[in-house]
């Protein structure tokens, strides 16, 4: 989970669940938390709900008095971890003050990126342009829009393999956690027949 403070808090709470639970529900629970935060639910409430749920899950999966005691101890230790995440300074280290958003679903890249940006309350617009098949689902260009505002910073790209498998595409974006400006990200989409490519990979063919 990326490094913004609310998401770190939720991530700490989710780590309280037994490993088996996390394997089954972990990704979905993190996504649900992001959606609830987008809807205005405070991260603390979400994290607290998960901590309580994790304590119940651990007690339920424990066998006997010793197991229950161990479960209770683990739950208590997790609660402490969440409290520390809550009290942690607002990430002075550069790595912690950056939010890394990665496209994992090229077929729905723009929608995924929009959802991730909304979850972090970034005022960043995502548009799509037709591109050659090898670039569809990756980021074509990005940048700040309008005059710089307080709490600014610049966006950075994360380079990874292209959806088609070739190396050297931008499949993620790094945003300062306290990014205060407006920005635009353009994501490539599959071109319709006859459409001109806004960008093409070296092996691109006309749409």
């Amino acid at each position, binding site marked *: 989970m990326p490094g913004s403070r609310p998401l770190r808090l939720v991530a700490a*709470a989710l780590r309280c669940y037994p490993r088996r*639970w996390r394997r089954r*529900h972990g*990704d*979905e*629970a993190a*996504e*649900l*938390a992001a*959606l*609830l935060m987008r809807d205005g*639910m405070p991260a603390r*409430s*979400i994290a*607290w*709900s*998960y*901590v*309580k*749920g*994790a304590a*119940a*899950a651990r007690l339920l999966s424990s066998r006997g008095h010793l197991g229950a005691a161990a479960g209770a101890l683990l739950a208590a230790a997790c609660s402490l971890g969440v409290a520390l995440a809550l009290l942690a300074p607002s990430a002075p280290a550069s790595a912690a003050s950056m939010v890394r958003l990665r496209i994992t*679903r090229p077929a729905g890249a723009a929608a995924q990126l929009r959802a991730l940006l909304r979850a972090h309350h970034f005022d960043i617009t995502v548009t799509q342009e037709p591109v050659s098949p090898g670039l569809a689902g990756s980021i074509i260009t990005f940048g700040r829009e309008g005059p710089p505002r307080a709490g600014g910073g610049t966006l950075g790209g994360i380079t990874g393999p292209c959806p088609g498998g070739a190396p050297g595409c931008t499949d993620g974006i790094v945003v300062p956690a306290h990014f205060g400006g407006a920005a635009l990200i353009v994501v490539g989409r599959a071109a319709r027949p006859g459409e001109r490519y806004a960008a093409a990979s070296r092996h691109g063919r006309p749409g």
Partner: protein
Amino acid sequence: MTPVERDGPGGRDVLHRAGDASVLILTSLAGGDKHGYALIKDIRGFAGVRLGPGTLYGALDRLERLGLIEALPAEDRRHPYRITPAGVTALRAHLDSIERVRAAGRLRLGLGEA
């Protein structure tokens, strides 16, 4: 206080001690399959209750263990859930049970039948 089991014409009320969240989830799923976020939104809409995500997953696990719901194959990362025939029976029995209590309460308060 000794826990009581409530039975009635609709069958044994296994939801009596499963908690309100379980009843809300079954009621929501009675209207169609849903994943976690959709369940929270739907329950907020029809009951005015904001389920916490930890409460939601706890209740989903409990209902699944009881065989009252089943997880469907994941769509993306989300698991939709479906109410099972046993879940429908349990929900019906629980609603019958509530209905009898409601009717008795209204009668004794002089509110008449509604």
